[in-house]
């Protein structure tokens, strides 16, 4: 059993990612920004190149041999995605990123909203799961309401219950499956049950969940699930909205053009069945191929293995960072119901809070890549009473040695800006 927990041969995995062997100045790269975007294995890059060079054509509309090859590759990728999340292929819509997927959800569900209706999201959401709802609320007169968080950085379900947050007026609930700042794993299934009890649609922003193999749409309870390719070893330029077929079939189109139609006439048009209804214009064909290759790669290692590795590294990082003087972890400090994004603030010995830009910059001078800012979650930072934070985020290629480098680096940062300790 311990064998499984210890996981796989990380060095062998890292050999598939040539970029991880880069030098940043005099230092080896320590890439701890995978929640922002992951690195890509050679296998994914090769699949994309091979597609462009030898099987490139438009899909569906191109019926010649190359067109059939491209279509088979594109639709094959759709099947791989569907299988990876436990859905069916006609429930998988390819978008350009998770943000478009969430906008698609907001706009199409929004067509049913009226003044007085309520949409519920949470203060810990990424802007991509906030702004689309603000825009649709503005347009329709619906009211936007928010889950608060507890001091530990988890959704405050007790307060929500007391406030009657989810009630008969609630039409949509949209919550992140895993927070990109706090790492919190949110109880989507429980919230979905509450949403469904009042007839609301449940949307899950799974951008930080799917890359870690944490999502099975058959049991999750959400009706719509958004995620993005570039955070799961895949290319940029592709995201996914999964939806229950009968829900998708009841939604109006979002963007118009290309193959999303049934018949176009001067007097008006009729639209294709899902998923095509929601894919306007030439889709991200090579990107789907790349995402399919990324899923193959994840499956080959095994998502359980990946999860076990990440859990181990997250636990190690939480322990190691807790020992850095002046460092305060935002969100859960134990590796329980917690993803591998670890945000923190750093205060020097003479009590100056080092700004995340400065943390980032000094770590970068040692080859260590972390993110500093509000991580597209400004309302969450406001709720936490801070402007910005630093974030280290892990993935299947992260090593304990990298965590050690980070911890050492943070000590150096604190010394640089504060009195030498």
């Amino acid at each position, binding site marked *: 059993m311990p064998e499984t927990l210890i996981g796989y041969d990380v060095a062998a995995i890292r050999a598939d990612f040539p970029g991880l062997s880069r030098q940043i100045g005099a230092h080896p790269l320590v890439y701890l920004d995978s929640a922002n975007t992951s690195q890509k294995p050679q296998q994914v890059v090769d699949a994309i190149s091979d597609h462009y060079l030898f099987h490139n054509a438009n899909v569906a*509309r191109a*019926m010649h041999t190359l*067109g059939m090859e491209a279509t088979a590759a594109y639709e094959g990728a759709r099947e791989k995605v569907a299988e990876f999340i436990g859905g069916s292929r006609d429930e998988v819509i390819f978008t350009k990123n998770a943000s478009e997927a969430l906008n698609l959800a907001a706009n199409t569900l929004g067509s049913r909203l009226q003044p007085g209706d309520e949409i519920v999201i949470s203060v810990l959401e990424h802007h991509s799961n906030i702004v689309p709802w603000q825009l649709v609320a503005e347009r329709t007169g619906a009211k936007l309401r928010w889950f608060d968080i507890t001091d530990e950085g988890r959704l405050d379900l007790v307060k929500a219950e007391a406030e009657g947050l989810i009630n008969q007026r609630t039409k949509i609930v949209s919550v992140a499956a895993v927070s990109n700042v706090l790492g919190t794993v949110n109880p989507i299934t429980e919230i979905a049950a509450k949403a469904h009890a009042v007839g609301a649609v449940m949307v899950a922003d799974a951008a930080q969940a799917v890359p870690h193999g944490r999502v099975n749409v058959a049991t999750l309870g959400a009706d719509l699930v958004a995620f993005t390719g570039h955070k799961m070893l895949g290319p940029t330029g592709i995201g996914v909205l999964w939806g229950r077929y009968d829900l998708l079939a009841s939604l109006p189109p979002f963007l118009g053009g290309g193959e999303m139609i*049934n*018949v176009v006439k001067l007097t008006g048009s009729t639209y294709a069945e899902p998923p095509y209804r929601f894919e306007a214009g030439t889709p991200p064909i090579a990107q789907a191929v790349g995402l399919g290759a990324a899923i193959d790669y994840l499956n080959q290692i095994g998502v359980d293995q990946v999860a076990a590795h990440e859990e181990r590294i997250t636990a190690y990082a939480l322990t190691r960072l807790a020992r850095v003087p002046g460092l305060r972890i935002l969100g859960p400090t134990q590796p329980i119901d917690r993803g591998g994004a670890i945000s923190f603030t750093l205060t020097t010995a003479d009590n100056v809070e080092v700004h995340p830009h400065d943390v980032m910059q000094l770590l970068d001078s040692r080859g260590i890549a972390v993110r500093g800012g509000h991580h597209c979650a400004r309302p969450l930072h406001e709720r936490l009473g801070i402007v910005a934070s630093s974030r280290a985020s892990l993935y299947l290629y992260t090593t304990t040695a990298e965590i050690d480098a980070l911890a050492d680096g943070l000590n150096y940062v604190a010394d640089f800006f504060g009195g030498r300790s």
Partner: protein
Amino acid sequence: MSVETLYQEIILDHYKAKHHSGLREPYQAEVTHVNPSCGDEVLLRVELDGETVTDVSYEGIGCSISQASTSVMADLVIGKSVTEAMSLLADFTEMMHSQGRYEPNEDRLEDAIAFVGVAQFPARVKCALLGWSAFKDAAAQALSAEEGRQ
């Protein structure tokens, strides 16, 4: 995947002389089905007598595969029970999605076995299914119309 696998003599014959083509009365249901990417259309009528398909008539615009397939379909289902017609539809659909790995039963599918080669051209499967799916819809509508009458 030679083009001869696709354009069998039977197909070309049906294409050049479509059976049961032209709209006829009476009919209980009429539907239009479209292939969105090329605009091919079939307007198809179904007349039932109880459980029996007494007539299928249609007007279609489309490629040789879609036209021949509709012609073959009409030959096959006229005079059969709706249940039997639906069962043939199921066989045909399975054959179309088999990518060529399907042993068609000539006794059941008759001329429709000529379409086994189409399954190797995924882009054309939609063409071959156009008339069949129109029939499926129309027959279902005709059935509920019959039930309404009773």
